[in-house]
């Protein structure tokens, strides 16, 4: 089946999968978003535990999606994996640090004799939810702003300058996506809380929180969209294998790939409608539509950065060292084999959805949290 595809088609297929995983990962980061509003949405310890428990039942999915995103990049685009992780060393190390402290926080937070104390674990959750998310947004933003690396004849990466990725923090434009992501995942968290917790005070506070965060989200998101639409993009000529700067490249990518453009618009509209329905019409079923909207929007952005003759990881040191889905990919054989493995993805998504529905059929209540044999986080 996949043997019939050309090498380029397989590379494109894998970029689509990476984009889908990226979209799913951003959606599942509602867990991180929720971690930043625990105090804001709760009035007492029981309410906070309800919120933590609600997120805690899903935190592993976020972790796993990150692992899969990394693993898929490693297998499908190993040159990106080597270049970005090895090159932008410090950014990734700080991100990883933010994720380690999340992993233990749910399970250890309320356990007796937990050494560091409940507040420390809650601080860990906050750091992971805020710094981790903003830094991830900045790291992804370098797809548009470029990174300071060179590749030698063996495709080994040499980062230029000692900041090892931290120089991305000096570009104010990179913060647009970082903060847009932060407020987006807080909005998604609010909708998730409303759909999974049966508790009026939390619900009311969540709706207010969503309203405030959409006000913050929109300027950053629109600023990001304006920036990528107006800036010169890193265009790749497949025939001459050269990279050059082209005005409004990303804007034209959305126009020249109408499916991607429509996907982007549909995604944004779905997110905004979900917010509208939640905040102004008092609905509590918008977590899923919002999720689909986020996945579509992120997918479209990633597709726009990898397709239509675009270098997805540009080198600002030397444009010709930029990574494209063609020069950064695994071999034809590996992509073919991996494509068969990818056929498992729908089954995986199906059982995740089934288990999720089975667990969330009954909302979390105060009684459940206070039950004597409850497994609480």
């Amino acid at each position, binding site marked *: 089946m996949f043997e019939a595809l050309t090498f380029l088609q397989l590379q494109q297929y894998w970029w689509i999968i990476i984009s889908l995983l990226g979209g799913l990962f951003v959606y599942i980061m509602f867990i991180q978003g929720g971690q930043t509003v625990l105090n804001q949405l709760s009035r007492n310890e029981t309410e906070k535990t309800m919120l933590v428990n609600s997120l805690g039942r899903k935190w592993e999915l976020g972790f796993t999606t990150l692992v899969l995103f990394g693993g898929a990049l490693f297998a*499908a685009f190993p040159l990106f994996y080597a270049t970005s992780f090895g090159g932008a060393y410090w950014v990734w190390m700080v991100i990883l640090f933010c994720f*380690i402290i999340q992993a233990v926080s749910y399970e250890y937070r309320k*356990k007796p004799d937990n050494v560091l104390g409940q507040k420390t674990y809650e601080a860990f959750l906050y750091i992971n939810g805020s710094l981790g998310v903003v830094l991830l947004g900045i790291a992804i933003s370098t797809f548009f702003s470029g990174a300071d690396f060179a590749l030698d004849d063996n495709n080994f990466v040499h980062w230029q300058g000692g900041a090892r990725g931290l120089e991305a923090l000096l570009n104010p434009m990179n913060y647009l996506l970082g903060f847009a992501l932060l407020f987006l995942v807080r909005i998604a968290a609010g909708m998730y809380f409303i759909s999974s917790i049966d508790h009026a005070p939390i619900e009311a506070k969540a709706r207010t929180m969503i309203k405030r965060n959409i006000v913050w989200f929109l300027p950053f998101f629109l600023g990001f969209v304006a920036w990528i639409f107006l800036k010169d993009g890193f265009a790749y000529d497949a025939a001459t294998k050269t990279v050059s700067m082209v005005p409004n490249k990303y804007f034209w990518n959305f126009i020249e790939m109408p499916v991607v453009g429509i996907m982007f618009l549909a995604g944004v509209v779905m997110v905004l409608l979900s917010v509208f329905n939640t905040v102004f019409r008092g609905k509590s079923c918008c977590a899923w539509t919002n999720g689909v909207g986020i996945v579509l929007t992120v997918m479209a952005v990633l597709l726009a950065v990898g397709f239509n003759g675009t270098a997805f990881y540009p080198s600002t040191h030397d444009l010709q060292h930029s990574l494209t889905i063609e020069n950064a990919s*695994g*071999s034809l054989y590996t992509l073919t084999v991996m494509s068969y493995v990818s056929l498992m993805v729908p089954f995986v998504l199906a059982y995740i959805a089934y*288990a999720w529905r089975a667990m969330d059929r009954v909302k979390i209540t105060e009684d459940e949290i206070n039950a004597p044999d409850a497994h609480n986080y």
Partner: protein
Amino acid sequence: MLYETAASVDWARAQFALTAIYHFLFVPLTLGLSFIVAIMETLYVRTNDPQWKRATKFWMTLFAINFAVGVATGLIMEFEFGTNWANYSWFVGDIFGAPLAVEGILAFFMESTFFAVMFFGWDKVSKGFHLLSTWLVAVGSNLSALWILVANGWMQYPVGMAFNPDTARNEMANFWDVILSPVAMSKFLHTISSGYVIAGLFVVGISGWYLLKNRDTLIAKRSMVVGASFGLLVSLFLALSGDESAYNVAQKQPVKLAAMEGLYKGETRAGIIAFGILNPDKELGDDRHEFYGDIEIPYALSFLGYHDIDAFVPGLDDLVYGNEKHGIEPAQARIDRGKTAVAAFKEYKTAVKAGDEAGAAEARTVLEANIADFGYGYLDKPEDIVPPIALTFYSFHVMVGLGSWFILLFLALLYLTMANEITRFRKLLWLAIWSIPLGYIAAEAGWIVAEVGRQPWAVQDLLPVGIAMTDISSSSVQTTFWMFAALFTALLVAEIKIMLRQIKIGPDGGDH
């Protein structure tokens, strides 16, 4: 080496070793305890006896406390391939990345999805679905071990690939060769069974403590039976899989086998050192004795390595300096061929750039003829192929010695518990408790044998660690090493404290 000093390489290795050591403190227990919990829940569902449910929930709580740090350190390891070993990531990422991705798709999601059902689904889903979820967590955890160990097995014995000079990397040529490599399979079976033994020791040790304290005796005795029978079965299997591993090492990594046994001069009918103290002054090629004192089991090494008591087992001197009589060439010959391969690779690149097709074809022919020794081209001298001998030797013997002790311990505990005599043997119960850390020591020792024993290779014969690492200053890696050391240690302390408290609270305490 290509660009960095030895200090950079050592810090990168230290950081990866640190992460792996911590990771391996948590993961083995997860692998085995998940099955023990599933067995107990199965007994609960079949008998409807609430005591089995109490036991299941108790061990499940300890499982969850341990699980989180294992997941966190695992994430770091995955990304450290990129951050610390960027050149490696490119050079072999086409092959190595695939098992990691499969691990994510097929194993991690299963584990994480059903983990939530297992802990929070007791009153939300049916008994049958809950039991299925518990088993799927166990299967998912062990499947993830399969894929990462397939990747590790490939690093020990690279198969199913071809070097592509145009992309300057190794590319996968046969997926099944990679997956079904005998080294990968025996590595998987040996490693997971070591995890099961740790879980068995954990359960019998804690059950022993309850019996000593004369509390929760029914659950403790039942847990003792489950833990000891599980432990006995898997420790016997561990011995068998260890034999298979040693056989593979003898065939594919003879230098590692020689280091494991402190064998300098090759022997026919070679024996295994049951006990020995290495002579620290001994050097390659000299005539000093290897040991201050040793007790040897005759013929055993020849049998272990080649399944033939008359077989010749090459020593380090033979492998480094060659042994004409037994057809072993000196390492220098491989270094020479490696340097020829590296030079031919450079010539190929130059010729391609210049558009010199004939020159490129000629260089490629030379490269392909010498590609099997490509990695040797980056070594300076024959002695570089020898790993740290003392560390490998002692680790191996600690692992084997403890493995034998565990079989005896499980056997005694099972027999005495079944005979309802166990509470009379208080010293044995104390031994069971003290054997919990011994299980971890044995597993870490095994890991050291596998990983230190294959130095200097990141990928056996193809890629030395010095070439594999990221072009980064040692100070950066040093800083992150201490960051991770501090964090992992804090988490380990937290885990031990929480675990001890939960054990003290016991099965009736529920979750706190």
